């Protein structure tokens, strides 16, 4: 059976797993974004706490994903929860780092002018700093998403949802009928998901970047 025959014969299951994969990734990135924005804004007057959290989230990235998923089993069992949790933890660093940098590097003169007009710190954040920082924050979210798409496949090791299932099952019975096709279909589908999301972010970026910034 050729690869293409395999894919068309199994399109339903592949499509189902692809959607699942997408959902898990978006869920994790959504959580990570909320957490990162919260941490970045909440620690504006606590530079040490901020530096510590940033360093911690960076360190977490160095833990091999296979190990992290495994370590979460005793606490969260198998399935969706440990997968989403692990992916969230991985996604935080790129988003948090970009958010912190972007908020810190907004032109001082612009903030000065806003303060001088009588905007309090809340208004400054909402009306001035977040809109100006947004393109860089969004880029952090995009990087985190692409990264997490790949890592999500490992989630299958803890019976997590998504395309990892195809890869793991295929590899575990390599030599068997269509084993290679099965694993390969998982890999290709992951690449497709990554490309889809990249296009999605390009679109979001176009639509949400304040016009005045790219005239």
């Amino acid at each position: 059976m050729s690869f293409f025959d395999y894919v068309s014969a199994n399109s339903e299951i592949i499509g189902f797993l692809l959607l699942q994969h997408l959902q898990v990734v978006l869920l994790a990135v959504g959580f990570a974004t909320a957490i990162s924005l919260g941490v970045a804004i909440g620690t504006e007057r606590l530079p040490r706490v901020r530096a510590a959290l940033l360093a911690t989230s960076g360190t977490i990235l160095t833990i091999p994903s296979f190990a992290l998923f495994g370590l979460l089993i005793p606490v969260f069992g198998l399935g969706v929860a440990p997968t989403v949790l692990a992916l969230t933890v991985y996604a935080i660093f790129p988003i948090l780092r970009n958010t912190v940098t972007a908020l810190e590097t907004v032109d001082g003169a612009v903030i000065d002018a806003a303060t001088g007009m009588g905007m309090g710190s809340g208004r400054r954040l909402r009306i001035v700093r977040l809109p100006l920082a947004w393109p860089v924050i969004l880029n952090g979210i995009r990087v985190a998403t692409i990264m997490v798409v790949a890592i999500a496949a490992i989630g299958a090791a803890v019976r997590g949802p998504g395309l990892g299932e195809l890869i793991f099952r295929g590899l575990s019975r390599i030599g068997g009928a269509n084993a290679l096709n099965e694993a390969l279909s998982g890999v290709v589908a992951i690449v497709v998901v990554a490309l889809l999301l990249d296009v999605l972010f390009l679109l979001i970026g176009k639509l949400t970047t304040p016009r005045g910034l790219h005239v």
Partner: protein
Amino acid sequence: MSEQSTPGTGTRSDVMISLRDVSKRYSGADAEAVRPLSIDIERGEFLVLVGPSGCGKTTTLRMINRLVEPSGGEIWVDGKNATRVDADELRRHIGYVIQQVGLLPHMTIGENVGLVPKLLGWGKDRIRQRVTELLDLVGLDPDTYRSRYPKQLSGGQQQRVGVARALAADPPVMLMDEPFGAIDPITRGHLQDEFLKLQARIRKTIVFVTHDIDEALRLGDRIAIFDENARLAQLATPLEILTNPADDFVRSFIGDGAALRRLALLRVGDLPAVPGVGIRDGVEVEPDETVSAVLEKVLAAGSDSAVVRGRGSLTVQDMLLATAVRDESAVAT
């Protein structure tokens, strides 16, 4: 008659901004950026702070709207201790033109100018109308510029938007930090004229920073000259500074040509004219024209005298000598 002659009470209410021994030392710096400074600025007065780079002009300005907290002394604005009132509320009633312009790049020119009125809760139509009025005032066609973004404007145009933005909510006090710095000399002269006309009409209390002594002489009711050590070298009217420079620093800061500059400040109506109109013929001028403008007209017309309406006639020599005489008498006193 209950004539109460409590000295000070009358003038006190006319003081809009009062700096009382205000000083600033930035943390980590070993010299004071602003040395203890006391100035009373009257309601409607145009005060110019002038001096070399780093003498503390911006710092002084920013202490008035509390963007910089003073290390010592007190600042009173409109009868209230500025350090005791809500900073944001204070700032909404003080127009501030910052040295680096600082337009919000993600908002249109119209949105930038309308920002403070919006913060103050004005209605949409009123804001729109005000934006139109202000863009006109600073010489930017509202239809062309309202919906542009700051990046689409030249540096000088951005500065003018900065001025319009500071004027937006019609604040009684304006702090202006080198607002015409990035504008070419011709447009700058034009804007200075416009601004003087505007000021004659709206009488705001203005504290204006520049390092250009000519701009200071042209605009200020009074000028505060600082030296590079942040010392207040002289606080006086332009004419007084040109006539009686307090020390060598002021003298060198004014540079050469003090006598000629004075001609640009004196008005022909202030000179003793020879009565008897019609005895000589000459160029007809108004009493409130400056001596230098009149000299220019007279010489350009190939004449040697001017007829000042309602006063009499003045020869070129009268005009030059009159200023010289003032000089001597001023030095003598």
